[in-house]
């Protein structure tokens, strides 16, 4: 008996990342060389980027019996994921080394998490969607807990794990209902079955509620947001940096695959749910962020509000909305990388620069870092000419285009509220007297350079957003046709 081998070429990046993650594990087990693991991780991600760019094309290719899809949207998101992961790894080197978690296992877990994201991005089947999500989540739980000396990290990991398991349960339960209803796990076939009409709209509604709730948990949308501040706060900042960036791209892909590829015919049903979640997220995120004194918690609440904004693009249900949401996700990840990256960069051994007061008078200590942080904060607040502004603008345009003006008005309102706490950081940096007058320890030149580039990218993309927007629109068009 012989069986035809599936076409492995589209999955080459995944295979590469998996293989090299295992190589890193072997290196860790036999040589205990964390430095080599670090370099190899970066090389792996670069190599995967090369392979993805090389194997990607305009056509959507399915393989593994239709469970894996390699399309333009997936390729763009994967490239952004590698970029985010590389940046996060470079930023966190010094931080990890000072806290004794600069270990091969950490980098292996990073790669496994990236693999999980890639699987989610390329999934065209409920099974692979779920397995990718679990792979990502499991790696993240472990990364949060890796700093064992920190009580807060262990507690955060526990919360994350329990709530994450609950969310997975909800998601699976919803998926099982969809399976019972349509008799298939394949997203395209589910879509086709729904289009033909289902025997029981009640079961569909139930399934949707559970699926959307699970999705909301993973994205960190209100009212399923409770874990976000605690986990972002408790986790080692390097891990927070990682959790807060690349996985958001995967979560966006997850939402797109599930809601658009699979449940598009039920758009009317899930639009309502997403609208409620989006409005709640923006309200809770922006209002609660104002109260925070810890910058990690503040950024966590800001994440919640940003994820609410992201949902607005998806729920618009138009092509413009989807590509706007994709642009928003990428822009958010860039800003978030810079924001958390700065927290990581300013932290030293035995000292976390996580209180807002730590940023008082940053300008007098390091004008350049203060300027970069200023750019990031302006961008997150959605002030032109930074990229965050265009991200918000395209979403609002798509909302108006879809006739959801009331949502657009609410979004603008909450953004205005949100601008307050971002601008407060700028005020602290420029107009308050510093606690300590010493210059910022200028170590890790590569991280500093990358951080500067990150800030400049946010500015440049704000000045010329057109190429990235076109890329998103193009990719979305190629994938959704």
């Amino acid at each position, binding site marked *: 008996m012989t069986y035809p081998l599936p076409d492995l070429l589209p999955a080459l990046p995944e295979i590469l990342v998996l293989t090299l993650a295992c190589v890193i594990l072997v290196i860790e087990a036999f040589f205990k060389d964390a430095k080599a693991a670090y370099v190899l991780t970066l090389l792996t991600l670069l190599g995967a980027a090369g392979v993805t760019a090389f194997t990607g094309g305009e056509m959507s290719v399915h393989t593994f019996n239709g469970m894996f899809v390699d399309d333009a949207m997936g390729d763009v998101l994967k490239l952004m994921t590698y970029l985010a992961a590389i940046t996060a790894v470079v930023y966190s080197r010094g931080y990890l080394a000072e806290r004794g978690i600069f270990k091969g296992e950490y980098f292996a877990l990073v790669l*496994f998490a990236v693999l999980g994201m890639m699987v989610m991005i390329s999934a065209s089947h409920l099974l*692979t969607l779920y397995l990718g999500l679990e792979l990502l989540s499991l790696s993240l*739980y*472990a990364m949060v807990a890796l700093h064992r000396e920190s009580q807060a990290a262990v507690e955060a990991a526990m919360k994350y794990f329990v709530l994450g398991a609950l969310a997975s349960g909800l998601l699976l339960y919803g998926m099982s209902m969809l399976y019972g209803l349509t008799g298939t796990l394949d997203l395209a076939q589910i879509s086709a079955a729904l289009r033909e009409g289902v025997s029981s709209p009640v079961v569909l509604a139930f399934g949707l509620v559970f699926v959307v709730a699970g999705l909301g948990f993973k994205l960190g949308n209100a009212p399923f947001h409770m874990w976000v501040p605690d986990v972002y706060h408790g986790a080692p900042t390097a891990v927070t940096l990682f959790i807060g960036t690349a996985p958001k791209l995967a979560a966006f892909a997850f939402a797109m695959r599930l809601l658009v590829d699979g449940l598009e015919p039920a758009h009317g049903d899930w639009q309502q749910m997403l609208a409620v979640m989006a409005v709640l997220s923006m309200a809770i995120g922006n209002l609660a962020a104002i109260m925070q004194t810890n910058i990690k918690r503040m950024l966590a609440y800001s994440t919640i509000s940003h994820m609410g904004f992201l949902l607005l693009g998806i729920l618009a249900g138009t092509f413009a909305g989807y590509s706007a949401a994709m642009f928003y996700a990428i822009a958010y990840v860039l800003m978030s990388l810079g924001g958390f990256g700065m927290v990581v960069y300013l932290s030293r051994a035995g000292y976390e620069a996580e209180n807002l007061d730590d940023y008082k008078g940053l300008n007098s200590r390091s004008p350049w870092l203060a300027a970069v942080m200023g750019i990031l904060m302006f961008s997150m607040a959605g002030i032109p000419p930074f990229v965050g502004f265009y991200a918000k603008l395209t979403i609002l345009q798509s909302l108006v285009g879809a006739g959801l003006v009331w949502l657009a008005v609410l979004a603008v309102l909450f953004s205005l509220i949100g601008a307050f706490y971002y601008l407060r950081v700028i005020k602290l940096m420029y107009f308050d007297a510093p606690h300590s007058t010493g210059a910022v320890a200028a170590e890790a030149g590569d991280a500093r350079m990358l951080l500067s580039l990150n800030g400049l990218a946010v500015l440049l993309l704000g000045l010329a957003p057109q190429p990235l927007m076109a890329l998103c629109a193009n990719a979305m068009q190629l994938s959704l046709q």
Partner: protein
Amino acid sequence: MNFADVVFFLFAAILLLAGLRVITARNPVHAALWLVLAFFTAAGLWMLLEAEFLAITLVLVYVGAVMVLFIFVVMMLDINLEELRQGFWDFLPLAALVAGLMIVEMVMVLGKETFGLVAPLAKPENYSNTKELGRLLYTDYVYPFELASVILLVAIVAAIALTLRRRPGLKAVDPAWQVKQSREGRVRLVNLKPQKPEYKSEEEDE
């Protein structure tokens, strides 16, 4: 009622009893052993459904490995179940409600109206459940199968990374090092010249 039905009802009764005893047993070790029985009977039920691979794997994995480790841990812990069970009666109405809902759901699912489930056709004589599962797992579902194995790998890595502490100053000896030791490294033959005894000879003594 034919022979298979009798066996089914027997196994189902044992399964229910065992399941009930898992949550009512006073002693945690007893509860774990009842759970073993429950797994075993469930495997028997699956066997009746001609799902021999799943049945045997259930016994092999859950009874043979998972529950052994479970009992291993339960035996060493001094758990006071009475304390754990406080509030059992308070939660009972809620639990009964959930259980009732689940029964209604199962009836809805298994009743033909909602999902249109029908009993599967009998398989031909030479049909091998094991072979068929293997074929599906390694062809159509090879991608999710491999992903699942990666998840397990991550679980192993995470468990080890989180629990392994390399304490300095351990006195354990590396067996490989021990095995490598040869006589040459350990024993030194010294050529001692015969010396005259210093004590007086017997003759002088007398």
